[in-house]
């Protein structure tokens, strides 16, 4: 039977088990919207801005093993979506983005709402396609899902001209698809794995450094088994939090610019570093020259060969899916009589405990002002550590990462690579839809939240009972912190003179708003908010304006050249 392109697309989405499409209509996608209207398997979530659609689809992917799908129109629809696509790309999040395009015969004519979608998005997608013939549509959609989810995941975009969504073709959805030009190496090299295990068993000062790859590959259990088996210290990057339980005594906290003292000292001073699904980001290792100064062997497991030896030269590269490689390593250790030397390891732990005594995340608990760290700690307590927490970008993001102890993967949802303000609220919508029964909170700042505040309206329409925790310091705090430290307290444009009344704003959108000004009210307000299971509650915490994030490795400095709270 012949179907139109639009019908074919919807069939393909159904075939892929797509539950939600996050989108916004417009001329070039009207054929597709008409088909969405005629069926009820694939549900559409109408956002208020295309950026919101992309972040929601992204949050949906990050918080589940399912894949987020976004649908936007040509021209401005696409350009509005670019921030969201780039955000997902930088964090390797699988996502399929469908965009409408002007009819094929109008392409290149500067037609109304035309833009070179494939060209504009090329640097921030894993791959993209322009479908010029309706007969190629089904196989292209299949390829898009396949590419997005295999190898190193990422967003894949399919641009569909309006005449293609209208044209007729026979429909058959391919069961599988292969691309001769795309064959990621997924199985780690056996010899290299053995070599790695041997190095680790002989290590005197081992350190396990893991990242987003653990979360993306659902390898948390494998990692935990491995790390516990060997008794090594373990750190998770901002993207890897929850990959190893934060409440486990072997966890040393996050590394990097705002990582713990002990993690950074251990990263620098270890003699064997096992990096798993982490990419030696500049926010993690600081100045590479300084990082090199210490002699250590590095083992790096990653699905993407280009992540290996990109910023730091690696001694034992292993290309493959981290979960399989870790399972293999566990097997090798279990079947071998060899174990790390207990006395040596104990001495290393002694050193680490010494570093831990710095208590680098200490803050003033007696302040008359609300300390943002305190709010996050209470949030952790009241949600039993079991909520999904999204965040925006800034100081609040770091405090959420430092003080909410994530024991499970996919619970911490934030934009690490691109650092996109405006991510938190729409991402939380996707999280809530992917996990309808779960508690979902968004830790945000008064500047970030205003970047996608319009999505409060979407939350109303779809009854998403999110809890917004606004750490309102009346500053772009992260910017202010840099200006305080490095620009002689000249707070250029990091202060907004006219903030909205967030309580009234929340109410205007049909939600509950609460303003909290005293430390003594923090816990009660949180408890009440989370008790309101059916409502979105916007909690506006008026926090200490001058609080800074510590520890801090200033840009360009070595990883151990940290500024600690006590030093100021």
């Amino acid at each position, binding site marked *: 039977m012949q179907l139109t392109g639009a019908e074919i697309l919807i069939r393909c989405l159904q075939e892929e088990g797509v539950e939600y499409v996050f989108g916004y209509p417009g001329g070039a996608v009207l054929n597709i919207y008409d088909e969405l209207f005629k069926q009820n398997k694939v549900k559409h979530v109408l956002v208020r801005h295309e950026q919101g659609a992309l972040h929601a689809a992204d949050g949906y992917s990050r918080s589940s093993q399912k894949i987020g799908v976004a649908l936007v129109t040509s021209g401005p629809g696409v350009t509005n979506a670019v921030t969201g696509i780039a955000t997902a790309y930088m964090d390797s999040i699988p996502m399929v983005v469908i965009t409408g395009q002007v009819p094929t015969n109008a392409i290149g004519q500067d037609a109304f709402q035309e833009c070179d979608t494939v060209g504009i998005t*090329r640097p921030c997608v894993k*791959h993209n396609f322009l479908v010029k013939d309706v007969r190629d549509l089904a196989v292209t959609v299949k390829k898009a899902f396949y*590419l997005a989810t295999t190898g190193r995941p990422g967003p894949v975009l399919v641009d569909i001209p309006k005449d293609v969504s209208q044209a007729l073709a026979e429909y058959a959805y391919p069961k599988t698809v292969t*691309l*001769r*030009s795309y064959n990621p190496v997924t199985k780690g090299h056996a010899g290299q794995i053995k070599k790695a295990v041997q190095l680790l068993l002989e290590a005197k000062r081992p350190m396990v450094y893991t990242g987003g790859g653990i979360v993306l590959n659902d390898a948390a259990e494998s990692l935990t088994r491995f790390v516990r088996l060997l008794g090594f210290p373990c750190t998770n990057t901002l993207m890897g939090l929850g990959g190893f339980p934060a409440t486990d005594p072997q966890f040393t906290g996050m590394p990097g610019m705002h990582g713990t003292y002990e993690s950074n000292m251990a990263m620098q001073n270890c003699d064997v570093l096992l990096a798993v699904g982490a990419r030696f980001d500049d926010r993690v290792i600081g100045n590479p020259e300084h990082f090199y100064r210490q002699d250590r062997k590095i083992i790096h497991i990653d699905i993407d060969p*280009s992540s290996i*030896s990109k910023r730091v030269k690696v001694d034992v590269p292993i290309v493959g899916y981290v979960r399989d490689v870790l399972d293999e390593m566990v097997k090798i250790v279990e079947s071998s009589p060899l174990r790390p030397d207990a006395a040596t390891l104990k001495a290393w732990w002694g050193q680490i405990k010494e570093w831990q005594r710095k208590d680098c995340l200490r803050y003033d608990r007696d302040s008359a002002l609300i300390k943002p760290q305190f709010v996050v700690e209470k949030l952790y307590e009241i949600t039993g550590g079991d909520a999904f927490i999204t965040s925006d970008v800034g100081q609040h993001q770091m405090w959420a990462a430092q003080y909410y102890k994530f024991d499970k993967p996919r619970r911490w949802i934030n934009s690490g690579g691109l650092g996109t303000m405006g991510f938190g609220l729409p991402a939380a919508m996707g999280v809530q839809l992917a996990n309808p029964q779960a508690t979902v909170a968004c830790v945000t700042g008064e500047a970030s939240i205003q970047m996608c505040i319009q999505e409060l309206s979407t939350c109303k329409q779809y009854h998403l009972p999110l809890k917004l925790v606004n750490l309102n310091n009346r500053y772009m705090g992260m910017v202010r912190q840099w200006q305080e430290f490095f620009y002689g307290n000249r707070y250029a444009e990091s202060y907004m003179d006219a903030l909205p009344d967030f309580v009234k704003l929340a109410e205007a959108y049909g939600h509950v708003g609460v303003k909290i000004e005293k430390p003594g009210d923090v816990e009660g307000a949180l408890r009440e908010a989370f008790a309101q299971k059916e409502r979105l509650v916007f909690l506006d915490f008026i926090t200490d304006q001058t609080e800074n994030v510590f520890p801090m490795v200033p840009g360009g400095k070595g990883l151990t050249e940290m500024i600690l709270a006590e030093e100021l």
Partner: protein
Amino acid sequence: MRHILSILVENEAGALSRISGLFSARGYNIESLTVAPTEDPTMSRMTIVTSGSDDVVEQITKQLNKLVEVVKVVDLTDGNHIERELMLVKVRAAGKDRDEMKRLADIFRGRILDVTDKSYTIELTGTGSKLDAFLQAIEPGVILETVRTGASGIGRGERILRI
């Protein structure tokens, strides 16, 4: 160091801009780039001459391999290889220069493809440095126009790049 990368790539619209975009986005050098379909019309072969430290060239190779449309990449400079470039050069050839120019073209095994009473158009193939040498051998004022293809390369002997 100078490296010659041979790349098999799907013959699809946009593949070229993905590759050139990769070089510009990541700040890699392109000295020259040539591309044309192979005996299998669904696939093109590209030769890119680039330069950089070994680490940089390793990253370039990895990043190229990561592009979905790239089928295979080899660094020809890793082994024995043949490199050829074609140049067309139009030179002034009048009066006493005319014979001299013919002689010089012969020495470089060039062929004269087009003749007017004032000019020759000479075809030359060889390595880039041979073509450079030819241009240096003639007086700069005599050169009217040059066009070069950039290098194409192939491995020597049994070294074969195919899928």
